[in-house]
């Protein structure tokens, strides 16, 4: 068995960890990440912090404007701003 088949770099592990936060890591990627997590302290620390960030984002239920909503707001405001300048 080739080493690269199961072992991934720290950067790749971080990338998979990021994708996992959005449910976009494949099953095979999750297996490779799991193996890396079992022995790499740095990846484990990154993963814990990443999971915590996802957790607080979900808990806070923050919201923001969609692009079309912001564009509408911007247009309205710029029309008014032009009158003041």
């Amino acid at each position, binding site marked *: 068995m080739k080493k690269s088949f199961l072992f991934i770099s720290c950067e790749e592990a971080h990338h998979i960890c990021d994708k996992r936060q959005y449910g976009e890591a494949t099953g095979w990627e999750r297996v490779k990440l799991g193996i890396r997590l079992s022995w790499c302290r740095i990846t484990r620390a990154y993963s814990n912090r990443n999971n915590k960030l996802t957790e607080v984002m979900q808990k*806070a239920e923050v919201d923001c*404007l969609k692009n079309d909503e912001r564009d509408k*707001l911007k247009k309205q*405001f710029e029309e008014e701003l032009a009158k003041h300048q």
Partner: protein
Amino acid sequence: MPKHQLDPNNWIKLYSDYLFNYTITRVNDRVIAQDLVSETFLAGLKSMANFKGEASERTWLISILKRKIIDYYRKINSNKGKAEVRMNYNSDTDAEGDWLEERVADPFDKTAEDKLENLELGDAIYDCLGKLPEKQAEVFKMKTILGYDTETICNELEITASNLWVIIHRARTALADCMQKNWF
């Protein structure tokens, strides 16, 4: 020389999402929240001469927004008395007598303290988001807050998927650092 100055040209870019989040957590309606934010910016523009420069631009806009939200609630409360109160009772005869229990507050529902903590958490997140480079904040919001899929963001911003993940990685790392200092 005042400590802070107003630059309305940057208001939408810098504060629209923050003010919108502040409003929607308090009024719970997207359209009303957008209207209140829009009214806040317009009121800010009209009262720029009153700005003393003691508070930051964002704090000043929030103080205007708070008044707008209070006015909104005053307005709907004054209309409430005129409205007819209707209550739908359960028509299921098997459940007769159970209706009162079904309508008591859910003990597992969020308490006022939870809500307050979440509002503060939201503010802390927005403080940290405000420190990110514009592009990182934009991609992060689209991906994490609005929940857009990778392809949609890539098409809209004309970036590749690998570009997107690099941006997301940098944004998440910076945010986690910032939240660690301010919240975790």
